[in-house]
């Protein structure tokens, strides 16, 4: 039963090989979907290109439905999967800072790496900025620690946070995503085209 490496079904030595292969697929898909172009990415904020919305939410839906189904079929134990920890204040504050960075820089970290790979100089400068930003954070870590540890909910999932069963949440996300896809096409038809 999965996850395979944590349960010793595939030897741990393979983990880094898997990491490289997963990264390869991840990078290929992002680039092939056009995420190496900052002007395509930020289109989602101005209504002229909704590729970010469509790729992101399709990926979330496929993965969350797939993983919960595999758990239902006992192919994997979902409680063994790593759940990103929730620190409420830092998730919100970090998200706000990242949101401003997204509009100023036109990339997020993963997409900037794919753009670096195909020769975009703006992405190389953005990535340099990422390294500087991480460095500043590291230097300020001791000052920031009190703020960072606030609102610690541990590795909590949404069904436990709001007390609604996971299947209902997943169904709601699916309906919301389909509605968002539909309306994004309506918006795009109305917004002035931007050529890039």
């Amino acid at each position: 039963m999965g996850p395979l490496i944590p349960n010793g079904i595939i030897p741990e030595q393979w983990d880094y090989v898997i990491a490289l292969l997963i990264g390869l697929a991840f990078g290929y898909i992002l680039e092939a979907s056009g995420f190496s172009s900052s002007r395509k990415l930020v289109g989602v904020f101005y209504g002229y290109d909704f590729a970010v919305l469509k790729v992101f939410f399709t990926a979330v839906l496929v993965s969350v439905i797939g993983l919960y189904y595999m758990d239902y079929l006992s192919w994997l134990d979902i409680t063994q999967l790593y759940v990103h920890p929730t620190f409420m204040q830092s998730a919100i504050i970090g998200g706000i800072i990242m949101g401003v960075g997204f509009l100023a820089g036109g990339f997020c970290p993963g997409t900037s790496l794919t753009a670096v790979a195909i020769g975009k100089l703006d992405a190389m400068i953005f990535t340099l900025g990422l390294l500087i930003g991480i460095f500043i954070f590291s230097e300020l870590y001791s000052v920031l620690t009190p703020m960072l540890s606030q609102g610690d909910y541990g590795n909590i999932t949404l069904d436990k946070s709001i007390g609604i069963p996971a299947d209902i949440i997943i169904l709601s996300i699916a309906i919301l995503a389909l509605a968002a896809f539909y309306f994004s096409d309506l918006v795009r038809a109305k917004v002035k085209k931007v050529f890039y």
Partner: protein
Amino acid sequence: MEKQKKIKKELYWNPYFGGFLLGLVLILVFYISGRGIGATGGLKGTVIATVDAVAPTHAQDSPYYAKFLEDEKSPVNSWLGYETLGVIIGAFISGAVSGRLKLKVEHSPKITSRRRLIFALIGGVLFGFGSQVARGCTSGAALSGMAVLATGGFVTMLSIFGTGYVVAYFFRKNWI
């Protein structure tokens, strides 16, 4: 024929197709390794390794860097380090087969390359800093978090995109 070939080169995947494959990759990584993907983790390893190489005493004295330097192996030699390397190779292959390998600064015709690069640097610094505050970026926190219904993943995603829509007006000159 030549013209047709040129159009084909420019073409990106259908977003639902790309999203579907990305979803399958996420299922695969959780099924095999029991964890999600990330993008800033590999960069963090690079920063820590660089600080350790340039100023080893400073790195050892700081509890933050020291935490990552306890191991014998370099912080770059990690799961996310190899994954990041894969991302760059994968994107390079995709760009190569689609004829998109080209050194250039991509920007709106209304702004100069210089302006684009200045804003790219500012944006990068903010995104890098913010990703550490939130303990993950769009990939590690939002996408991988939401794949397993992590509450923090939803909060980070809403916070990034909500802020994006709020501030989009102020950056419009750079993009539209």
